[in-house]
């Protein structure tokens, strides 16, 4: 499972070589998340409608190696958008992927864009 964790690497928007067309916008609940599968990766995508923002990160919570973050509640810590893992409520910044409890490692985040009613996630091959 540690090997699993190494599959996920934060991707800068400047380094994106593939914009993957994931799903239509309405497949994602407002102010919540859903999961997509890209090759052997599971990516959590959040439609943060209150902030008119979209975020993508690994679905794998590094605390107990659970594929769970897309099912977590999102919110804000001061102005930082975050997601709380449904298993043990570890929270991570949706912007930087930083673990906000300082107890476990950070998560990888991915660039995201909306075009023609579709959600695209950026990957570096």
């Amino acid at each position: 499972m540690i090997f699993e964790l190494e599959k996920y690497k934060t991707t800068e928007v400047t380094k994106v070589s593939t914009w993957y067309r994931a799903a239509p916008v309405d497949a994602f609940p407002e102010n919540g998340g859903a999961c997509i599968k890209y090759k052997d990766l599971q990516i959590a995508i959040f439609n943060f409608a209150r902030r008119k923002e979209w975020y993508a990160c690994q679905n794998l919570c590094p605390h107990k190696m659970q594929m769970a973050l897309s099912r977590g509640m999102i919110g804000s810590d001061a102005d930082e958008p975050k997601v709380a893992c449904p298993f043990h409520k570890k929270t991570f910044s949706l912007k930087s992927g930083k673990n906000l409890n300082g107890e476990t490692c950070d998560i990888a985040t991915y660039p995201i864009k909306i075009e023609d009613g579709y959600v695209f996630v950026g990957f570096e091959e």
Partner: protein
Amino acid sequence: MTRIAVIGNGMVGYKFCEKLCATSNRKDFQITVFGEETWPAYDRVHLSAYFSGSTADDLIMASKGWYQENQIELLTNELVVHIDREHKKVVSHSGVEVFYDKLILATGSAAFVPPIPGVEKTGVFVYRTLEDLDAIMTYGRKAKSAAVMGGGLLGLEAAKAVMDMGLEAHVIEFAPRLMPRQLDAAGSSILQSKLESLGISIHLSKSTQQINGEEQLTGLQFADGSALAVDMLVVSAGIKPRDELAKACGLEVAARGGVVVNEFLQTTDESIYAIGEVASYKNMIYGLVAPGYEMAAQVVNQLTEAEVKPFFGYDMSTKLKLIGVDVGSFGDPFGDAEPSKPIVFEDKVKGIYKRINIAANGKKLLGGILVGDASAYGMLLQMVQNNMALPPEPEALILGNRGGGEMVGAGVESLPDEAQLCSCENVSKGAICMAIEKDGLTQIADIKACTKAGTGCGGCLPMVNDLLKHQLKVMGKQVKNVLCEHFDYSRQELLDLVKIKKIRTFNQLIDQYGKGDGCEICKPAVASILASTWNELIVKQDTIQDTNDRFLANIQKGGSYSVVPRIPGGEITPDKLIVIGEIAKRYGLYTKITGGQRIDMFGARVDQLPDIWEELINAGFESGHAYGKSLRTVKSCVGTTWCRYGVQDAVSFAIRVEERYRGLRSPHKLKGAVSGCIRECAEAQSKDFGIIATEKGWNLYVCGNGGSKPQHAKLLVTDVDSETCLKYIDRFLMFYIRTAEPLTRTATWLNKLEGGLDYLRDVVVNDSLGIGEELENDMAFMVQTYSCEWKEVVNNPELRAKFKSFVNSDESDPSLEFQEMRGQKIPASWS
């Protein structure tokens, strides 16, 4: 380098080390500590917690690692047998020799055992050390009853301990009243009736003449000719200073025991100090921790050449919670040290007694007694200690201000800065205010860590808390009990807003009354409030629900879910059992009987949930709400229908109760039970509401729970009929739903509820707030609007579509991994 030897590793001996290590001169000292027990110093004040689940580790003041880190040589299991004053050396029973420049005697005291014939018999114990407690617990397992000799502070603690062990408890006191050194006759009698109502038998004016039995104790024989048959005896009749070492090496010892010390805590050998319960200052032994800590502090000050405050005696005021009853005794409790007049308030119905002694000139408070409600203790003690002027109507100090408005001159803000709030650690009001201001502290925990106030007996914490609130208010900071950073409201306030403003969504509420975007704390709390108020389908706002409520199933290790259909009262037909078996087999689910008399099926993928539920619903099942902070089950025994002892039909009533409250969302989960007779096979007294059949009807118990801190439910009403019972449960549950903090079980809620069970009974049974009908109507609405949420999801394609692993693929989650155990599947283990 000064060599310090400390004999005794009790609370005071430890405190000496802690204080010496905290000074800047620590490096000038080499410290060796002898402790005769196996453990390093532990908290003897809270010994009885050992009986209610605390372990030795919980009670330890500081681990052995702490001594190592602070370079203190701690020798446990070493009994010092000799002090060689000439060569300044101490010798232990195993031959360890340590030389000293300064010697600290902190040997404390042992239990005093009166020389009663038969006191050596098996079954007689003292209550002093963890080993004593282990011995009491082991012996207590085969005993049914126990007597405690001594009705003082420690004796009553011991009585609580034997009660917690489930034994019939008796307290034997020589004096004509309990706690004769702290309470007067009236206060004592209130305490007595409270303890008796809890099932402790109190025997006063009893002089024990003999302990009956052959080798093993069978009972006590009293001088008045009466006798008491008991299986064990715990002696707690006072303490005896451990002065034998001092005596043997020629130090002066007081006539009534204890090593004689001067106001600098020096014994008759100036390089030997005595502190704590072994020290006798002017023929007085100070058997509390606070004076012991003060002695330790003053010796440390002398050794480090800091400013020394001579020890001229110590205030022996005490406040404690005895078996759930608050007792306080402060200053001159009896008002007999100088001419005085008492003001007395007594309420035998509520079990409250308050007495304050006013100086003859009417200007000063001298002392007093509080039983049943000691909330004013801290302030009153401060008034005595600081010689503060009395308010014009001193009775307001114990009766409260009946004219409305703020009471003048009685709040923590009126205290002078030098007022000592924490007597255990000697922390002044000024020091705490400084810490709040300079270090920006906002939490009690921070104040404890920073100033140590409240870390001893904890008696000052209510006042420290008041001071914190006051100080923050003065500094213009928000001190409200708020939900989280997004709402400056408590749960109760938000519930009122939702109700009055008819708010139905999280977004409406946060837009109007909150800020930011919400979080994992406020979202589920608001979801619960909305569900408890409007009872709408929760998955309509699925993203504010915790994952279990979002997917109407319990997430398990590995990310699969479990499925629990409702089986009201635990009653199920063979046909329905077969359906569950078939479904579990078809979907390859692990099955287990739950603690709540139903069947849990584990290992379902999120996309399988609607299909599984469709089959269950077609077979007549409905959601069991095992995933919600809501009613789980109402457990039952078979009652009169089958059982030869039953007096009421427990199953029928349990089904009725479970069906009434099914789906009811609340601050935390709710569990109920109905037992058909006094044998209580359904374990109703461990539930949030428990119903036990009587010949005449039902007894209703409330606010119990199992879990990590088990608490017995408390008896709310007796012998009520079924309708009345439901009416009271309606009111009780709705009152709880309205007023509890998020994620607070009923037991914790009751513990924090001001006025406790009596107040709850007033509200629920006597309708003292006049809201009884309103609560019933609210509950009636919930009952009428109930519908099975799984049925709605199964029949709604849009909602059903949300149960998928991936939105861009119909594949199921490949990360779900299972292995096999005893013929069923289980998730692959945690990484």
